[in-house]
């Protein structure tokens, strides 16, 4: 937080109350929407009180300073407010050792990744597309599953853990992984085509049969890559739009004009 120019009657940023609001607004331990909500409520409270104090006969400067000191929490009250705004996930697991919680989270993510891989492999097996698969199908499955696992981890971090310190971190990685999955699928199909051309050069009589088999194999490869890439892209869009939305709401609550380039931070 830089300044709250819009807070009526607020005194300079050097006051204890101003500092506590500033700390609250930038506290990385609290989710961004919770910080926004608290700041909005406090600023609303702050907005009405100075007017009443002025009506009671105090000077505008003194009314603003007094209102800020009364309304904005500090010390134990601030800690209590932060505790209330903490995500339910943290409150539920408060009794457990942080190291063990982290290990359990990693294990859960690994299990979810393996389940996704199993689901994708099972679908391909059921549709008979794994009888003679392209060798490039395995890296596509690997990178595609990694993409989905990265989205899952990011969504868990943002929406369940409420860890919003540098919320955009990892978003570009998701987009790159989704594009890489699609790229791998297309490149694999192209390399298989080169290989097919080489085979047809030596055995032209089996052309029709080989071409049909190639079509099925490559269609399965590229389809798998497309499904993973589209899922990755949708996940990226959902995370990106949500982060932009909460960042803009936070900036507006702080009376900062959201800059057109804000989301590039």
């Amino acid at each position, binding site marked *: 937080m830089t300044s709250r120019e819009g807070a009526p009657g607020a005194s300079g940023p050097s006051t204890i109350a101003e500092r506590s609001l500033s700390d609250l607004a930038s506290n990385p331990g609290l989710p961004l929407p919770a910080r926004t909500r608290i700041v909005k409520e406090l600023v609303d409270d702050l907005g009405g009180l100075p007017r009443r104090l002025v009506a009671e006969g105090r000077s505008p400067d003194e009314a603003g300073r007094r209102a800020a000191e009364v309304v904005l929490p500090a010390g134990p009250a601030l800690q209590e407010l932060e505790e209330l705004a903490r995500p339910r996930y943290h409150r539920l697991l408060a009794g457990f050792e942080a190291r063990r919680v982290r290990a359990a989270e990693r294990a859960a993510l690994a299990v979810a990744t393996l389940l996704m891989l199993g689901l994708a492999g099972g679908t391909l097996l059921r549709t*008979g*597309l794994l009888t003679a698969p392209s060798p490039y199908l395995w890296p596509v499955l690997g990178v595609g599953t990694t993409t989905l696992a990265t989205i899952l981890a990011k969504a868990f971090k943002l929406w369940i853990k409420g860890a919003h310190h540098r919320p955009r971190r990892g978003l570009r990685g998701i987009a790159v992984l989704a594009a890489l999955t*699609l790229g791998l699928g297309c490149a694999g199909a192209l390399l298989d085509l080169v290989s097919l051309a080489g085979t047809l050069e030596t055995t032209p009589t089996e052309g029709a049969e080989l071409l*049909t*088999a190639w*079509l*099925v194999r490559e*269609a*399965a490869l*590229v*389809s798998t890559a*497309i*499904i993973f*890439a*589209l899922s990755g*892209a*949708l996940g990226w*869009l959902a995370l*990106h*739009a949500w982060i*932009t*939305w909460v*960042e*803009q709401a936070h900036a507006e609550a702080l009376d900062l004009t*959201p*800059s*057109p380039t*804000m*989301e590039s931070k």
Partner: protein
Amino acid sequence: MIDLWVVMGFIRYPLTFSSMVILALVLYSSVRLFEGDARALPMTRTWTDAVLFWGGFAFITGVLGTLLGIVLAAQSIEQAGTVSPMLVWGGIKVALYSSVFGLLVLAASSLAWFALHLRWRALASRETGSAHG
């Protein structure tokens, strides 16, 4: 026209869905960008960019529909043994419909995105100009 839509098979549903999302996004973004007190907010840009995203989504979904159509056709050919080339090309033609539809949606969404993005940039440069001036 309805026959063409029906013949695309299951993939017509995600294609129709993405087309409707694009339409809704274009309408919403137009209202946000052309209203009286319009501002170049980051969220407005996200909605505008989503128009292009869903256009790309529709195109790739169309390609996926073509590929799945080819897989199904090729599996049927494998089972049947020999089929007339006319039937094979007929199948490929039908499988290509979804790609063509996806490409048309991408083209339309790209044009809409370009117009909306231009307006967003005009608002952004106006805001930057007034902030510095």
